[in-house]
């Protein structure tokens, strides 16, 4: 091997680089360029400001949306139709997973898309941080009316009196039940339960055990599908939040959690858990417990019909409002929606709103929601929409959205923290590890503390902003 270490100057052993011939000043200059490139790129100095992008003479705006599959195809059809009609604007639809987190980073970084599709439940969080543009000024400027929308969907997009999003694809939940199992248990398949007590009694008839005493079929369990543990209090006349205060430990909510506990007590906590472990995490599959007829009654959303068509086409099912525990409290249903918003920092908000105006027209929303197999958030519905809708119960879901007892997740900026306290408390009650009162008190205490902290954080930030302002 060549002995290069003893020679003066820098030498490369195998002659890969002709280092000796590179004069040092040349070399220093090259290095300096490298250093400055890497350093400045971190400070956003040499990155050019993005240029407006024109396609065929039309301004291109970017729209981030979360939907894939048939839902993605539906929004693409709407975007295509808008683009066909336009000679000024072209919408570029970009499908985005984990859209809320990516939007967060893009908005914080000052380079957001012109339009973003969020979930109504996460909107308060973004709105509280003033990451979304208020939409009322755009509506006023363009003469777009508010009263075409169902109130409940505008409410969900409003945070502290300001509208930050418009509803695109709404959903309501209802009781879904298996008509064949009803018949088998001697129940009338055309008469779903009308009170919660009736539901409990029917659930008992629809529950079967094998010779060893193991559950093989349950009529109902509040743990399936397990997506809205927070919601049960509303069927007892309760609420999670009164606009000022966390109201989790009210008698109504406590009654709901006592009802939840009655299920592990009836079936046996360990046995129900074992049964649950066989069906967990299989919603979008033929193994879904409702499709395999192992659970006879569940709460599900308007989307369920299309999953039944895909995974269990022969299933005989019906839908009805989930019955409440309080006489006179009718048509209680959870309502949620996806929302379209303009992020703060969007470069073409007016053009973005132009697309919102089309998307939120009856034509745009019916095209989108027929594809999504949902209904529209508008008061007006065209007869063709209802006639060609694949869900036989679509009018029930629309009716539930109009109900005065429809409810939605509280419009708090700390809603995710609230929900993440309820889920483990629910588990503890289902496991028999906590009594309903303990669980309810624990959630109330923790979430009240969180809310106090969040409120002082908002005040502190507002104060800091005032001080920073000249």
């Amino acid at each position, binding site marked *: 091997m060549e002995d290069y270490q003893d020679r003066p100057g*820098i030498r490369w052993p195998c002659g890969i680089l002709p280092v000796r011939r590179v004069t040092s000043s040349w070399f220093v200059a090259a290095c300096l360029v490298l250093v400055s490139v*890497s350093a400045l790129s971190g400070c956003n100095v040499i990155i050019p400001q993005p240029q407006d992008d024109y396609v065929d003479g039309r301004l291109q705006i970017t729209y981030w949306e979360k939907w894939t599959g048939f839902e993605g195809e539906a929004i693409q059809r709407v975007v295509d139709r808008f683009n066909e009609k336009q000679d000024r604007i072209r919408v570029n639809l970009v499908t985005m997973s984990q859209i809320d987190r990516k939007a967060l980073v893009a908005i914080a970084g000052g380079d957001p898309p012109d339009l973003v599709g969020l979930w109504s439940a996460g909107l308060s969080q973004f709105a509280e941080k003033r990451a979304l543009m208020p939409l009322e000024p755009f509506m006023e400027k363009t003469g777009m009316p508010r009263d075409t929308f169902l109130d409940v969907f505008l409410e969900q997009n409003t945070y502290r009196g300001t509208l930050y999003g418009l509803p695109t694809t709404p959903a309501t939940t209802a009781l879904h039940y298996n008509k064949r199992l009803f018949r088998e248990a001697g129940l009338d398949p055309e008469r779903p339960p009308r009170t919660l007590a009736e539901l409990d009694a029917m659930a008992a008839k629809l529950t079967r055990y094998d010779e060893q005493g193991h559950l093989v079929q349950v009529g109902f369990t509040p743990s399936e599908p397990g997506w809205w543990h927070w919601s049960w209090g509303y069927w007892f006349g309760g609420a999670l939040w009164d606009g000022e205060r966390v109201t989790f430990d009210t008698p109504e909510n406590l009654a709901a959690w006592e009802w939840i506990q009655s299920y592990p007590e009836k079936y046996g906590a360990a046995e129900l858990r*074992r049964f649950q*472990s*066989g069906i967990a995490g299989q919603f979008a599959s033929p193994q879904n417990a409702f499709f395999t007829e192992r659970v006879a009654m569940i709460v599900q959303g308007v989307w369920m019909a299309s999953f039944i068509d895909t995974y269990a086409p022969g299933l005989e099912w019906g839908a009805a409002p989930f019955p409440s525990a309080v006489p006179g409290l009718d048509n209680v249903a959870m309502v949620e929606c996806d929302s379209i918003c303009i992020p703060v920092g969007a470069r073409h908000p007016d053009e973005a709103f132009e697309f919102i105006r089309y998307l939120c027209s009856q034509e745009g929303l019916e095209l989108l929601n027929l594809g999504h197999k949902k209904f529209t958030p508008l008061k007006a519905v065209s007869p063709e929409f209802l006639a060609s809708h694949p869900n036989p119960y679509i009018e029930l879901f629309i009716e539930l959205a109009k109900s005065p007892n429809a409810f939605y997740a509280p419009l708090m900026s700390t809603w995710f*923290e609230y929900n*993440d306290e309820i889920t483990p408390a629910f588990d503890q009650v289902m496991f028999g590890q906590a009594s309903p009162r303990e669980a309810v008190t624990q959630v109330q205490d923790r979430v009240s503390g969180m809310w106090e902290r969040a409120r002082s*954080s908002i005040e502190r*930030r507002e104060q800091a902003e005032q001080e920073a302002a000249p």
Partner: protein
Amino acid sequence: MTNRERRNLRNGLLFISPWIAGFAVFTAYPLGASLYYSLCDYSVLKPPVFVGGANYQELVTDPVFWKSLYNTLYFAVCFLPLATVLAITLALLLNTGVRGMTMYRTIFFLPSLTPLVALGILWMWMLNGEYGVVNYVLNLVLNPLGLQAPIWLQSTAWSKPAIVLMSLWGVGYAVVIYLAGLQDIPKQLYEAAELDGARWLAKLRHITLPLLSPAIFFNVVMGLIGALQVFALPYVLTDGTGGPARSTLFYTMLLYNSAFRYLRMGYACAMAWLLFLIILALTLLVYRVSRKRVHYAG
């Protein structure tokens, strides 16, 4: 410093300047910034507001923080010894020189190449409480004894052991390092020991393990750091909730949720710095304990 030394220093610095710049921009600055943010109320979307030690104070009084720390230490304490013993055992078996050995080595390394998300979904099925293949086999043995296999991920008692079990699937990397270490041990030591009448166990105890100790030390330290940062598998399995009843809510999951779900970046930064201190302390402890037990050849 002579002129030439100075010139060499300058040239040397210039040569590594791309790295220095990259380190400064992508590592040193974020590190320093996170320390500052840990003292702030910072939501990412709004400028940080300095709050002093409030985040740290809230952390140490939050039972959920302690729960996540407990879960993480539980995982590390179970996983690390099991992984070490399993990896050394596999390495010893794969070092015996049986025919088709390269194929076996490949087979044992393959699980390490499986993406964690695929691994999680696969194990979710295998550990299904009622229809999983693991419980099918277990129940063949347990049912005659009047016992029931656990329901793994749906049970607060068994969810962490289930994640330990899944993680053990990825010991392939450690096995490769142990194999390299084993092949470094001079043959003549074994021959000398055999002449003195040493059996398999004596050779393992007095030659193999002492000379493998640097590799074991390396794997234990890396394994410790990895175990305290366990994230992807439980996150995929529980959709980020750490359920049931927070039994699989690990430290980094709470950290991630605080930062990106609750938009409390300052709080998350404080958690990150505490985790850094915990890992530093435990690593120093491992160094101290192992000082007399690690033998470097040559």
